[in-house]
């Protein structure tokens, strides 16, 4: 009975049907749909509460194993190289998508007025000025954003970092601690690793259980988001959304091709096996929350080596930020186009580098925080962001979904390139798209 129920709830047809129903419900009854928003929030919180322990234990034990085993140190070099290549690829695909589908290309007249209305806010507002200043100073020293940039990466208090979900700091701590731990494996280090392993398995078990709630959580989350976004901004920012979609499709396509090439499957078969991971990424819009599912899919269904995947994939999803990178590239192109700025060749280079930097800085952030970091790209190019940020936030629920899918699937491909090629085992022959072990 339990088995039938779980297979029913995880059936992709049901999930897709729930998605379609949610979109329709969100459009038809926005008020009711908005009321459902807390339910989606609870589901997401439950997911995240176990994912951080999972991440913590997976990365720490992974690093400890790698540091202790000289043979597997080659992975570290490979991780760095592949990640850098992946980030550059993401930026370039973003550029290409932005050239083929200009994000602000056709905006003029009525569309510009509609965008202006979004920037001004709702009509109930009394059209106040953007800012208020005084001519007699409080002159403070100009706050350089660069000074505090590195504070984002150095952990000061691991428990604080864990409780605030500060992923990069958690990862850095795990790396340092894990490396140090590897020197004490014979003095009780293995016991600690054993404990961490149990934490990992337990977290994964909880997440599997939570997945049974996915169709309902999906309905709550998607319908409330559709109700929030409304149709207006979707139309006005159509070009922007199209460019983002094109880049996302391109990067997911490249990723599936790479995975297919490494496993000997067809890209479609690879897509099917990663189907539920992609669905979870689209709906939860939290790449961290998808990690256990992704590890499961890569190891059980695609046959990659478990121990290495369990280190590489969580690490890459946490800090190899290919999702935000293409988003920032297209966002910057949108701003340049809407203000009629023609970028010089060296400015394109600055754009790519700044987008990669902003992507790395966005680790652990969500939604509006991620959007605001586009300032890191705009500032060196001397582009204004205040108006554009309001527009981007208006459609962020959709674009965040695209970023997350690319972040998860893209890093699955990165992991596929690093982890040893799987043996052709019975796992692959019997694995189906719906099974969870």
């Amino acid at each position, binding site marked *: 009975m339990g088995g039938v129920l779980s297979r029913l709830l995880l059936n992709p047809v049901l999930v897709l049907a729930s998605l379609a129903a949610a979109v329709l419900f969100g459009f038809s009854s926005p008020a009711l749909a908005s009321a459902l928003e807390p339910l989606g929030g609870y589901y997401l919180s439950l997911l995240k509460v176990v994912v951080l322990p999972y991440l913590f234990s997976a990365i720490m034990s992974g690093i400890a194993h790698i540091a202790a085993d000289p043979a597997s140190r080659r992975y570290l070099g490979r991780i760095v190289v592949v990640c850098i290549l992946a980030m550059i690829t993401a930026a370039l695909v973003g550029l290409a998508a932005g050239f083929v589908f200009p994000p602000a290309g056709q905006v003029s007249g009525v569309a510009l007025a509609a965008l202006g209305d979004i920037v001004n806010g709702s009509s109930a507002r009394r059209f106040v000025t953007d*800012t208020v200043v005084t001519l007699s100073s409080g002159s403070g020293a100009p706050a350089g954003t660069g000074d505090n940039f590195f504070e984002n990466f150095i952990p000061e208090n691991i428990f604080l970092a864990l409780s605030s979900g500060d992923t990069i700091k958690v990862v850095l701590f795990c790396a340092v601690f894990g490396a140090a731990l590897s020197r004490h494996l014979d003095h009780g280090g293995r016991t600690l690793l054993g404990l961490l392993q149990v934490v990992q398995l337990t977290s994964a078990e909880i997440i599997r259980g939570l997945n049974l709630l996915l169709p309902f959580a999906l309905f709550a989350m998607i319908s409330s988001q559709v109700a929030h976004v409304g149709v207006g901004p979707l139309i006005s920012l159509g070009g922007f959304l199209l460019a983002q979609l094109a880049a996302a499709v391109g990067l997911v396509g490249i990723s599936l091709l790479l995975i297919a090439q490494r496993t000997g499957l067809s890209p479609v078969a690879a897509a099917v096996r990663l189907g539920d991971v992609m669905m979870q990424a689209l709906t939860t819009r939290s790449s961290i929350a998808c990690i256990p599912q992704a590890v499961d899919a890569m190891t059980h269904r695609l046959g990659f080596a478990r121990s290495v995947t369990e280190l590489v994939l969580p690490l890459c999803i946490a800090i190899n930020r290919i999702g935000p990178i293409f988003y920032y590239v297209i966002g910057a192109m949108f701003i340049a186009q809407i203000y009629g700025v023609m970028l010089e060749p060296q400015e394109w280079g600055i754009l790519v580098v700044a987008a990669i930097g902003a992507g790395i800085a966005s680790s652990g952030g969500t939604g509006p925080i991620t959007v605001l970091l586009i300032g890191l790209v705009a500032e060196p190019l001397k*582009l204004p962001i205040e108006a554009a940020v309001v527009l981007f936030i208006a459609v962020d629920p959709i674009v965040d979904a695209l970023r997350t899918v690319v972040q998860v699937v893209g890093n699955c491909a990165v992991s596929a390139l690093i982890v040893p090629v799987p043996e052709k085992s019975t796992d692959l022959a019997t694995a189906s798209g719906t099974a969870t072990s």
Partner: protein
Amino acid sequence: MPVMNRRSLVRALGAVALTGLTPLRALAQTLPPDLAALSARGKLVVGMTEADTPPFFSGPGEPHGIDVDIAHAIGAALELPVEFNRGFKTFNDVVNGIALGTVDLATSKISRTFKRSRLVSFSKPYVQLRHALMFNRLRLAQAARGRDVADVTRTFEGSIGVVTGSAWVTFAHEHFPHAKVVEFETWPEVIAAAVSGSVDAGYRDEFEVRRIAIDQPDSAINLRTVAIADARDFISVAVPWTAPQVLAIVDQVIDALPQPYTADLLIDLYRAQSGAAGH
């Protein structure tokens, strides 16, 4: 009624006794000269610029608006009919018109400045607005060099667009000594220049700058509006310096106004007006 001192009372009674005039007629001869001159003319001529400035004064033909209402209230207090003279191109021209005697007073969204106070007298203000700038967003980003907008505003070195012959030319030189002041014939020309980037910013009061978002929603993409909290624009009625009694009556009329006009209220009035007109 003017307060009468002992001497004039004696004179008045003497006049009654000597000339047989009725007491009322005798009192009339002691009206302050400025009021007497107006009574003799039989009407109150109020000056306004020719360009419409809603919701202060606008309308083809007979104007309507806040300034029109105040003018009528002054006319009622002086027991005189009001006639509007809108033959003035700029705000400075209206002020000069008072000094030259072409008009008796001006309710024309006149800003009180030191320069103008040397020519005319100003009533107490009936509207107080903060100064405001509208920056071209792209120009601002290019000039900012990492500073925030408050710092850029304080040491502004770019070009500021203002309406020619208005108080804003004076204010711009006073508050932004390092900036280059560019004068335009009309306010819509200033807005267009700021939107296109031919000037770095436009400068006027908070109400006019906020109003742009209502008239041209797409301007929000190109313009960043900034209100200046510690720079204020006082809108007053201007009267000739030779008319102190008229000035006192105008002050009373302003005291009797039902509500203080704030920028928020002006925005609401303007939206109601332009909504009705189908803008």
